[in-house]
């Protein structure tokens, strides 16, 4: 019965009816709800392993993650609802969670609750209990509660709530087995009828008009009734929490407050944030050189083998060119350039995210957003944009005001996603070599003989530091551009005053390093790389064809580049680079490989076998530090990739905003680059 309502995506997995025993194994839908920052995703990840799927659920164009757990012979489809404090549908996330519960009617709903903060979490439990029949409370973080001297009377809580309560420590898996068996029992028998509601609780349940009303009806209409209801819920939550929670004297130091004294300090907050980012970029640049070179070497060995194979088979030159020089090389370059920095940067970034640092960035930057009439949570969507701009656009749902949400959506491209990040690093290294190259030519002569090793060592640290600083500066320019464009938008097409904003500053938590690294690797690195390779392969073939189809004197690629060259020069780039950016619209990852192939087709150069050889290709084709700087800025500020534009269309439901999401950044990027050229010429720098 439930399966019938589920979208096709999921019905592949749900072959028989949800919750109905069809003989051997049953399919049971379990919704996972909970406040943000209570370890809900840890519970989800620990139960489902790393086998996450995206399911498109009916009613809304919303993708929810789900995972499958095999338990006692049955298949449990765990659906990860967005983390929400409430189900009053005051935000899109709350609406999504509420719609799922009402429309899909999951067999069991698990509410993950923070044991250190029972009172506030009970608000959601009460609402869930009323909206769904079969609810299980997962009392998470009991270890953290213990170190803070908080003890919770689990049986007393079960009595008070009339729901099964399972204490867990999701980080190390404690209690998860019991959670699963409780879910199984509830799925089989319905709510465990071992307790009767206390009279006060029952009273509260009966007076929840906001929750029992039709779905999708935000409980805003009858204000005073809803307010009364919230008041009652908290009174009850407070009563239950004080009856079941016992505080022992503890010597626990509030480390969160100590860290926040520095990290969100009025004087040091922003400098510390920049320093932290700078260190992360430096580590990424410094460490990724070696694996990059290794991959280049490996791929060139394979290319030689492939070449020999094609020769042996007597394949025609165009087939060899198309498959090896086009498809294989482009894919190899994408992997060699992108994989190492992504494999280093994203785990570090995810660690910061899981530790709870991102809300502090939003906290530190909010006064700047206030000044440009933006929303403080825009900083969080920007942080998501570091992973993927399309994800950043989706994340803008956390912003309740439509005006500020649109501003966040339209400016998200100014944060370099992980597809652009490696090209940014490469351009930064070229920029660095361009600058140092001109210095070195002047001061190279007296350096010979002794101490050969140390200058080499020193220069690689040095160049990583300079490139790291260049990336940091360019990201700061991206952030500055976000502010400027947000301000301009709020003064023109998105007029309005800043709305309010409220955000939790959760306690810092030690991230689960192993899980984070695996998750960052699978969800971000492999996901993005796979997409890049899928786009790179056909684009490599097309680029090779363009580079080898002659139109009179020129190849088609050469002709297009020559056509774009005047415009490229105005922007401080050249025709080839501009063409590469345009051809890179499907995925930003392939911009550098296209540019390289175009350059290499101009001259009969062999395949570059290292990262520095790759940089040399650019430098030997007329790139200077100005070109590299312009390319960095253009990469940072130009139109979002095809996926992101499509996501903007899906999220806003309007072609107008999708088009504007291209037009606004392009106009801004061109303005900035033309200004840059002017300044450089004015100062006589190049």
């Amino acid at each position, binding site marked *: 019965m439930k399966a019938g309502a589920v979208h096709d995506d999921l019905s592949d997995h749900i072959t028989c009816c949800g919750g109905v025993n069809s003989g051997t194994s049953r399919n049971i839908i379990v919704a996972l709800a909970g406040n943000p920052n209570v370890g809900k995703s840890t519970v989800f990840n620990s139960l489902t392993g790393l086998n996450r799927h995206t399911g498109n659920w009916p009613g809304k164009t919303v993708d929810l993650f789900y995972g499958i757990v095999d338990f006692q012979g049955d298949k449990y489809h765990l659906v990860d609802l967005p983390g929400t404090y409430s189900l009053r549908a*005051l935000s899109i996330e709350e609406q999504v969670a509420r719609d799922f519960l009402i429309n899909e009617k999951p067999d069991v709903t698990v509410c993950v609750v923070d044991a250190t903060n029972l*009172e506030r979490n009970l608000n959601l439990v009460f609402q869930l209990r009323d909206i769904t029949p079969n609810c299980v409370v997962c009392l998470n973080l009991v270890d953290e509660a213990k170190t803070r001297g908080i003890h919770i009377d689990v049986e007393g809580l079960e009595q008070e709530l009339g729901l099964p309560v399972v204490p867990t420590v999701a980080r190390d898996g404690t209690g998860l087995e019991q959670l699963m068996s409780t879910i199984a029992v509830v799925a089989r028998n319905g709510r465990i009828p071992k307790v009767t509601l206390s009279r006060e609780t029952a009273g509260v349940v009966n007076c929840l008009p906001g929750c029992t009303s039709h779905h999708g009806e935000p409980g*805003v209409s009858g204000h005073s009734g809803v*307010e009364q209801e919230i008041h009652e819920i908290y009174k009850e939550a407070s009563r239950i929490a004080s009856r079941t929670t016992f505080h022992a004297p503890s010597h626990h130091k509030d480390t969160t*407050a100590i860290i926040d004294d520095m990290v969100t300090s009025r*004087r040091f*907050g922003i400098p510390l944030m920049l320093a932290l980012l700078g260190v992360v970029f430096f580590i990424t640049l410094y460490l990724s050189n070696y694996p990059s070179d290794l991959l280049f070497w490996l791929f060139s060995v394979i290319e030689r083998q492939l070449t020999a194979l094609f020769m042996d088979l007597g394949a025609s030159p165009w087939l060899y060119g198309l498959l090896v020089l086009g498809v294989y090389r482009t894919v190899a370059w994408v992997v060699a350039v992108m994989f190492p920095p992504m494999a280093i940067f994203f785990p570090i970034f995810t660690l910061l995210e899981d530790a709870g640092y991102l809300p502090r960035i939003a906290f530190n930057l909010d*006064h700047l957003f206030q000044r440009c009439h933006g929303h403080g949570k825009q900083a969080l969507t920007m942080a998501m944009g570091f992973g993927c701009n399309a994800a950043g656009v989706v994340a803008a749902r956390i912003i309740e005001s439509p005006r500020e949400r649109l501003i966040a959506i339209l400016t998200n491209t100014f944060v370099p996603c992980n597809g652009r990040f490696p090209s940014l690093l490469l351009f930064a290294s070229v920029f660095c070599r361009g600058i140092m190259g001109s210095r070195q030519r002047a001061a190279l002569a007296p350096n010979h003989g002794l101490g050969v090793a140390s200058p080499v060592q020193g220069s690689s640290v040095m160049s990583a530091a300079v490139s790291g600083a260049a990336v940091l500066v360019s990201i700061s320019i991206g952030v500055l551009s976000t502010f400027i464009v947000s301000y301009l938008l709020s003064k023109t097409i998105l007029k309005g005053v800043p709305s309010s904003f*409220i955000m939790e500053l959760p306690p810092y938590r030690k991230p689960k390093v192993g899980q984070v690294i695996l998750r960052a690797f699978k969800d971000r690195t492999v996901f993005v790389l796979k997409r890049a390779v899928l786009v790179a392969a056909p684009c490599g073939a097309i680029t090779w064809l363009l580079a080898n189809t002659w139109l009179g004197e020129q190849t088609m690629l050469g002709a297009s580049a020559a056509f774009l060259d005047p415009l490229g020069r105005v922007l401080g780039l050249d025709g080839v680079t501009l063409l590469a950016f345009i051809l890179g619209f499907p995925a930003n990852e392939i911009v550098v490989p296209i540019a390289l192939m175009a350059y290499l087709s101009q001259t009969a150069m062999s395949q570059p076998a290292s990262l520095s050889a790759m940089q040399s290709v650019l430098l030997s084709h007329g790139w200077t530090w100005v070109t590299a700087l312009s390319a960095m800025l253009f990469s940072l500020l130009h139109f979002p990739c095809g996926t992101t534009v499509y996501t903007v269309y899906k999220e806003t439901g309007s072609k107008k905003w999708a088009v504007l999401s291209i037009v606004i950044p392009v106009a801004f990027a061109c303005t900035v680059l033309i200004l840059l050229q002017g300044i450089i010429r004015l100062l006589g720098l190049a």
Partner: protein
Amino acid sequence: MSESPSDSWVALTELSPGEAGTLQHIGLSGVLRLRLMDLGFTPGVGVELVRKGPGGKLLAVRIRGTVMAIRSSDAAKLLIVRG
């Protein structure tokens, strides 16, 4: 109460970091009012001003065991009694 409200009620923004009080009145309307209440800002609840943000325009407030960031323009409309 012998005192009239205006004598003892102050805006949340008047507190200095580390100072606490009891929420008396939410001078806001619409969705934000509901949202704040939904997060536990109900009259009678204890609030503590934890710190002010780098621009001084954002406050970190502890309420029901959670630290929430709220803009001072909104916090100015939350009236409390000190202590």
